[in-house]
């Protein structure tokens, strides 16, 4: 049980990393970030359950709150990106590129 959960958390983390590295659609990038946070949460809860601590779960509540705030800000930035560049492809947002 504990090992299975930790291996699944590692797998979800790697998949989220691959989504961020390979995709060019900004909505899917934000979903990849959510997947990374979710994998970290799963690992924290698994270890706090395995070792008999409660602090890991408190940390997970804070992480879920920050994830909600992050996705709200990220999606409103996304709406502005679409308004200004007419596309949500990451290659279009190159105004700051020197």
């Amino acid at each position: 049980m504990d090992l299975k959960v930790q291996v699944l958390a590692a797998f979800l983390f790697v998949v989220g990393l691959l989504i961020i590295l390979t995709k060019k659609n900004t909505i899917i990038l934000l979903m990849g970030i959510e997947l990374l946070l979710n994998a970290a949460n799963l690992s924290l809860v698994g270890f706090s359950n395995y070792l008999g601590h409660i602090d890991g779960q408190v940390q997970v509540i804070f992480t879920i709150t920050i994830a909600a705030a992050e996705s709200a800000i990220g999606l409103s930035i996304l709406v502005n990106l679409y308004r200004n560049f007419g596309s949500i492809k990451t290659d279009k947002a190159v105004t700051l590129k020197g």
Partner: protein
Amino acid sequence: MDSFNLLTGLICGVTAVLALLMLFSEQPLSCALSLLGVLLGTAALYGLMGEHFIATVQLVVYAGAIMVLFIFSIMLLNLKHQADHYNSGKIRLVVAGVLGMAVFILLTAALMGYFSSTPQEGIRGQFGRGEIQQLGGNSLVLSHALFTQHYISFEMISLALLVALVGAVVLAKRKFD
């Protein structure tokens, strides 16, 4: 106990397959629905581990609120037939895949090494599975820790959430020239 292990393995497998579907799908909406499945599977695992409060928060906040935000913004942007323009180069895919495999193998090896040895005596905390049952359940123990030991952090995080909420509304309403 055996059916419990079987159920855990089944949920882990389904969650992993849904994450892979998310990696290989090009449409944002199917990606969002796969992410919803992953979050539901994670909530089920939390429930199986006995962490009922975290499982409920996961269902309400992640699978409820955040997924509604994602699906709402997909609807708002109304992206139709642009799927074929989002492919990245072959070399990039291969390099990312090899790196990802390496990270996964290293993490799994480290985890196997950790779980094959018993943890040292001082590391184990006082809230084992039996002790939590005696103290009145997971929600009681967790809320006690949250409102005594971590009280300041809890208040700070609620303030941060409020600031982020106002910031999101301001950013989305603003017109840049």
